[in-house]
């Protein structure tokens, strides 16, 4: 569509103004989705070099459900300890500060995806699968710190849930066209909103306090080679996106065109990766719902 401004070269602030303005105008409430405050507090801790366990525990204690969830995580087979963690501090020590924060953010983000119907549930499954997939791929490729891969994976398609929350009808029309037309969902989104879900997601994630490099990975996850900076993380998220499709939790009509193969993974490696992801996905789904 010729009148769309080109968002590829927009700086973060200009993109944020465009995304926020459009989403607010579309939504019935005039609001842009916000992450629950516990999640933003945890995100601030992730970025704070002086963060300590006590501060993290204080955030967790504001919600009894979260305390139980973190304890259950620490005692799950997945993060298995020899003797069960009895206190919150034990649990946080087992999981590590960073992993605890990731789980806390994921648990809070889950609320946003509870909003409406089967579409939101599919998007949540896709988000969780991609987050764990990104972690798994980071471990295998050693190209990125695995701890830095979870959140960009979790939020890579958060723009789509924002689209769904703002106006479900537009979301359905685009999802329908993506199935029948040759164009990708992202191209169709740009025709309608003037930006795509990757750009919307990066903008929202920036607003919620995700690190700039994570936001860039979200913004460029459909075209990692065009990313001005941090192409490695963007490519990893793109591959995790594809991996989520492989285990049956895709987020849209088709998996991304580039991805696992660009990481140099053989068919066997990809299959092994998918098997591991299936296991960790099942464990975390039980934990986070």
């Amino acid at each position, binding site marked *: *569509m*010729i*009148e*769309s401004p080109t968002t590829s070269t927009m700086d973060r602030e200009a993109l944020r103004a465009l995304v926020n303005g*459009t989403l607010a*105008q*579309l*939504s*019935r*409430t005039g609001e842009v989705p916000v992450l629950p405050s516990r999640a933003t507090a945890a995100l601030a801790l992730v970025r704070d070099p002086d963060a300590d366990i006590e501060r993290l525990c204080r955030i967790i204690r504001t919600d009894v459900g979260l305390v139980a969830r973190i304890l259950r995580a620490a005692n799950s087979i997945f993060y298995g300890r020899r003797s069960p963690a009895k206190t919150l501090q034990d649990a946080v020590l087992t999981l590590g500060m960073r992993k605890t924060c990731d789980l806390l953010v994921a648990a809070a983000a889950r*609320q946003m995806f*509870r*909003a*409406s*119907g*089967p*579409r*939101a549930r599919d998007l949540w499954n896709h988000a969780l699968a991609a987050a764990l997939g990104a972690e798994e791929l980071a471990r295998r490729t050693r190209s990125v710190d695995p701890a830095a891969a979870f959140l960009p994976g979790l939020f890579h398609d958060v723009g789509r849930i924002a689209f769904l929350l*703002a*106006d*479900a*009808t*537009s979301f*359905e*029309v*685009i999802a*329908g*066209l993506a199935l029948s*037309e040759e164009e990708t969902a992202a191209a*169709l989104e740009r*025709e*309608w*909103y*003037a930006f795509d879900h990757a750009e919307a997601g990066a903008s929202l994630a920036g607003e919620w306090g995700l690190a700039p490099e994570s936001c860039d990975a979200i913004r460029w996850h459909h075209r990692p080679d065009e990313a001005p900076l941090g192409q490695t993380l963007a490519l990893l998220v793109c591959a995790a996106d594809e991996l989520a499709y492989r285990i049956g939790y895709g987020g849209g009509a088709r998996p991304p065109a580039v991805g696992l193969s660009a990481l140099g993974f053989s068919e066997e490696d990809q299959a092994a990766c998918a098997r591991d992801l299936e296991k960790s996905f099942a464990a975390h789904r039980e934990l986070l719902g």
Partner: protein
Amino acid sequence: MKTVLTVDDSKVVRSMVARHLQPYGCRVLEAANGEEGVAAAREHRPDLILLDVTMPVMDGREALGALRADPACKAIPVIMLTAESGKDLVLEIARLGVTGYIVKPFQKETFDKEVSKVLGPPGAAAIAAAPAADAPVDVKTVLVVDDSEKVLDAARAALEATMTVLLAHSGQEALEQYDRGRPGVVVIDLAMPEMDGFETLERLRGRGRSAYVALAVRGDDGLHERARKAGYHAVVAKPFRAGNLVDSVLAAANAVAAPEQLLGALFGEDGDCPVMRMPDPRSKVLARVGPALTRRLRDLAEQGTDKLILDLGAITEVTTEVVSALAHLIAAAGGVGIRTAICAPDATVMEKLKQFAETKDTLYGPSLEQARQRLD
């Protein structure tokens, strides 16, 4: 049927327009640029043209000029679609002499506001074809609308003992089922793809005076509040317990039933003695039937009845509400010369009632037969 022409180089925009036009029940024609648009307008003479401003080949301004210069097309109302909302552009569009403009991306409310100026309110065509809105509804029938088969199954299992249950998987299907069954209560999932619970409610409301119950995700207070404001009588959180759904549906049915209908369901007979079933005070049925009940008692007295059994079979707990409702009933019956006896199958209910000043001197029996014997 009216015809609307949408002219836009984006397939997405044309699809959005077509989707938002669905409630208007019109024929939608598409053109991908100004030139095609003008040609289609000349051929089909649509009732409305939605015209994009910026397009290749011939843009919206040129197309509008061509339409206005053609005597056959110049009177057709045109609404411009634009990607910008700048003041200069708005002024320019206003000068072009169009009916209105819509900024893209738009949502339902914005679209309807402009388009309904020309086409009338959405759903008007469908309402014209449907039964009259004031045709009676059947308070014993409930329609449940949800895109989840699991929820529909659970709702049917919960409700089928007390009501006739109709099911629909989407808002569109709900409209068809509604006209077929005229349900007194419609239970609608707020979060359905395509037509959500708000739009479904809006479109059903023009068709009849039913009561509406929303199914909404638990914990989203904002959504629950919005549902009530939109006109839902009650909101049931999902996943629901069968009892909760039944209570809400019955309360909603009571809210729409005519007092005579409600009263009819309360009165029966044991032999030649009239029996009135005491409804659960929480259902507020007595408050709604008040004047009709007084009339019914007077009619009974005029027909020569001098006794009435109050059946407390549905009451499991004695509250002050129960006591005062009974006292009111006994006094009203006494006022027209009808003596009353209470049938209380639950011994603890009977014991408790005898402790209250208002009800301690009444006649009691644990069964209808014994209550009648006390009256004879």
